[in-house]
């Protein structure tokens, strides 16, 4: 980033002694920062305080019983993991390939590259519920129907909310995250490395796979982690493409429905049979979901920081 190499604004310390206006400005902006940080802390604190006493090994490994008032949320954790795993194995290769095309193969000023960039930017802005509509209208109603007619004689096997459709919907939703992160990492690889590799007789493909991509691994990892974090937390796209409230089985087939942490939070918050009795379970689920996404985000930040430091050293 250009900003990383500019002279830090320590030079502004050479300014005149701050007057009242300056002090007020610094005060106001500090206050704003503190408020935003407070927002973060308050949410975390509320969830941790409300949910920590619920967390236990049983909570994480058992299924809910007695009308969601007792037991654990293991099926929801399993469903979330299965969903994000499927989503990742689709989104990451596709995103990396797209980023590789944009940085390595596309001729400069290529119209196709511009179109792809525009589409990625627009995908990033599509409301999550529209993805849900898309999943319903395309994957379930069209592709699923086609598969059913072709392979299962019209029996509704794939033309219904399924793990695979929800995963594909989420993969499209998180594609921009992977692409942007990978592209940033690819661009940061020094040109000399590529030129050197080609000069030594390697083909473009060999250069990309053996020289450039390994160098960009940090960014790819960051993108993947951020995508997983996003996918684990999204609810709107999966509400109608696969998530369910109470399933007596674990999703082991591609066309199974699944329980999901985020969806579980939504349902418990609005439709639980006994609000007081299910509140502990609700807070516990929120805490698990928050811990999951937070750990992932922190990991992404750590990877990105380490990767940037290494690059600066190189």
């Amino acid at each position, binding site marked *: 980033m250009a900003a990383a190499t500019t002279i830090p604004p320590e030079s502004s310390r050479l300014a005149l002694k701050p007057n009242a206006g300056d002090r007020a400005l610094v005060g106001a902006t500090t206050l704003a920062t503190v408020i935003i940080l407070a927002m973060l802390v308050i949410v975390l604190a509320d969830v941790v305080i409300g949910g920590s006493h619920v967390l236990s090994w049983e909570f994480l490994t058992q299924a809910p*019983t*007695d*009308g*969601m008032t007792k037991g654990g949320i293991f099926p929801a954790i399993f469903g979330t993991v299965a969903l994000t795993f499927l989503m990742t194995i689709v989104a990451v290769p596709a995103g990396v390939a797209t980023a590789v095309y944009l940085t390595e193969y596309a001729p400069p000023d290529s119209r196709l590259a511009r179109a792809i960039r525009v589409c990625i930017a627009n995908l990033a802005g599509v409301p999550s519920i529209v993805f849900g509509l898309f999943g319903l209208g395309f994957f379930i109603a069209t592709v699923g129907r086609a598969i059913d007619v072709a*392979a*299962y*004689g019209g*029996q*509704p*096997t*794939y033309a*219904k*909310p399924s793990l695979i459709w929800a995963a594909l919907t989420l993969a499209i939703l998180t594609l921009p995250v992977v692409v942007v992160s990978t592209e940033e990492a690819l661009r940061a690889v020094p040109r000399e490395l590529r030129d050197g590799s080609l000069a030594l007789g390697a083909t473009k493909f060999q250069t990309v796979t053996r020289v450039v991509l390994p160098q960009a691994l940090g960014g790819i990892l960051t993108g993947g982690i951020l995508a997983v974090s996003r996918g684990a937390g999204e609810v709107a796209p999966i509400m109608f493409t696969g998530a*369910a*409230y*109470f*399933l*007596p*089985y674990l999703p*082991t*087939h*591609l*066309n*199974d*429905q699944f329980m999901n942490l985020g969806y579980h939070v939504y*349902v418990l*918050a*609005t*439709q*639980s*049979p*006994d*609000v*007081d009795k299910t509140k502990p379970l609700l807070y516990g689920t929120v805490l698990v979901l928050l811990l999951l996404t937070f750990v992932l985000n922190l990991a992404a930040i750590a990877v990105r920081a380490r990767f940037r430091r290494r690059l600066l050293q190189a």
Partner: protein
Amino acid sequence: MTRTLGIALAVCLAACTRTEAPSTTGADGGTVTPDKTSITLKGSDTMVILGQRWAEDYMKKNPGVTIQVTGGGSGTGIAALINGTTDVCESSRPMKDVEKADVQSKRGAVVVETKVALDALAIYVNEKSPLQEISIPALRKIYLGETTNWKDVGGPSHAIVLYGRENNSGTYAYFKEHVLENKDFAAATQTLAGTSAVVNAVKGDVNGIGYGGIAYLEGIRALKVKKDDASPAVAPSLVTAQDGTYPISRFLYFYTAGQPTGTSKKFIDWTVSADGQKIIGDVGYYPLPKT
């Protein structure tokens, strides 16, 4: 090379797909699914806890059978029945003729209705509210937005805050038909996603009023209801619901496309048997009147 890849993919896909034995069409046009071990129940949020308890108990007594219960509102269940994505539809309101016709045209089967439980639609108020009873005409005026202040019905002077359900709810539809005489709810009614959300809202709002199944009464109070201004006020209870003196009591239904068969039939028969009906009381609704 592409062909082997395609075959490999198809095999993998097939291995990863859960299929049921193909259903055939029975004599009455209903779908006969031989020995299906997994059935889905979908629909009413009012009934979702009941459905879940039934499912849990039945699965304990019949290992090998899995019953999947989802809520979403009676309308969701009926839509699922029409779309073919559920075996049994749970509904807290009777199906409309238009919907039955849709099932006929889309699934080629006649809808079969089974009454499974009784519910008294409770009118929720906050525990601190001074109101004890209300008449149906007054309730109608409140939810149509004509009466907007509690003082007009005997409470303190304060605006009434209306809580209601989404329009896919059977409770919503029942209330609309039987209390509002099919007129529209006031636009200011907050639409909440489930009965428990309504309960939660009224619990936290002294000036709130809501409606929902009797089983959800936790931390709030149910008003006694008068059929009209001259009738006696009746509190919702097992007796008054079963003998019909509580004016807004309703049946809870299971709907299937065609006569239920196989696992669905066994499950539904069990729910209306003595064993199944006993559980209803635990959940908070009322068993069917013994005829």
